[in-house]
């Protein structure tokens, strides 16, 4: 379901509260992950559940042009809540596959159920191919430097982690599908172009706080601004998704080159 955006409405007031609310919830989760503060998990869950309920209620009451934006905010809150409470199987690899499956199903159901603003097709230029091939290398090194050794705390150096690289590419694409293809696209009907890019990037960075690294959240925010700008110019999820997938593929090489692998 798609509809044409005739004129963009001003930034919905409720979103001005919902985005920082979600960010605070994720920041509290960061306190739990990085500092082991048990209260952080409870506070984070309270804030995220509150933001989720408010976003759903706003979605139920919103007019057509802003309902997708509220729905997208609820989707991000829901994703964060599921990430927090998903029971673990004992294997990080299996957990990651289950989590990705849940997120992809939620995003697909969202796009099918909620009317989305139509995108104008844009013809890509030849230079776009160079961007797809070269930008991921630079992003991967920045990502590896910001993530540091935290990656190997979760996925120990060895064959299983290396075999996981194709899945990481899939995850990278899914992340773009969620934050650019759903969130930014939904926001773009309810606010200006840069407001949509900035808001989607803020939610993207907030979710990445679940890694327990502020540096990585900062990287995610800056990368999201860049990829959001590319998405707004190209209107192509395939384009930014491929860049992100290649970035996550190059990441392992960047770790090894930077000497950040054990």
């Amino acid at each position, binding site marked *: 379901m798609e509809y044409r955006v005739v004129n963009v409405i001003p930034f919905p007031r409720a979103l001005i509260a919902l985005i920082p609310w979600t960010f605070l919830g994720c920041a509290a989760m960061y306190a739990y992950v990085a500092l082991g503060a048990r209260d952080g998990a409870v506070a984070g869950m309270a804030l995220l559940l509150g933001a989720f309920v408010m976003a759903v*209620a706003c979605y139920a009451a919103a007019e057509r042009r802003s309902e997708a934006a509220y729905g997208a905010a609820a989707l991000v809150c829901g994703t964060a809540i599921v*990430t927090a409470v998903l029971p673990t199987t004992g294997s990080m690899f299996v957990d990651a596959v289950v989590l990705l499956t849940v997120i992809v199903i939620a995003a697909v159901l969202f796009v099918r159920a909620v009317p989305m603003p139509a995108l104008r097709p844009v013809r890509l230029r030849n230079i776009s191919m160079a961007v797809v091939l070269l930008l991921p290398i630079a992003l991967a090194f920045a990502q590896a430097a910001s993530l540091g050794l935290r990656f190997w705390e*979760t996925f120990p150096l060895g064959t299983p982690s290396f075999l996981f690289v194709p899945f990481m590419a899939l995850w990278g694409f899914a992340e773009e599908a969620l934050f650019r293809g759903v969130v930014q696209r939904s926001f773009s009907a309810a606010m200006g172009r840069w407001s949509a890019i900035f808001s989607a990037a803020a939610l993207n960075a907030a979710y990445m706080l679940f890694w327990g690294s502020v540096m990585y959240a900062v990287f995610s925010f800056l990368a999201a601004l860049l990829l959001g700008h590319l998405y707004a110019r190209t209107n192509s999820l395939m384009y930014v998704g491929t860049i992100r997938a290649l970035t996550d593929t190059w990441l392992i090489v960047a770790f090894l080159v930077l000497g950040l692998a054990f």
Partner: protein
Amino acid sequence: MIVRPLGLADELLTAAVIVMAASVLLLLFRRRSRSAAALPIIIAAAAVISASGG
């Protein structure tokens, strides 16, 4: 990039399931709720409870 599931299921799963299920119910009754005055109350209650918990 892959975010780690936190595995907080034992402690907080019940609360999360109840709240999310209630929200889905709210969506199912969306047409009625659109005209009802209950939504601002729901939003206000969620804000107060969430802020006090946070």
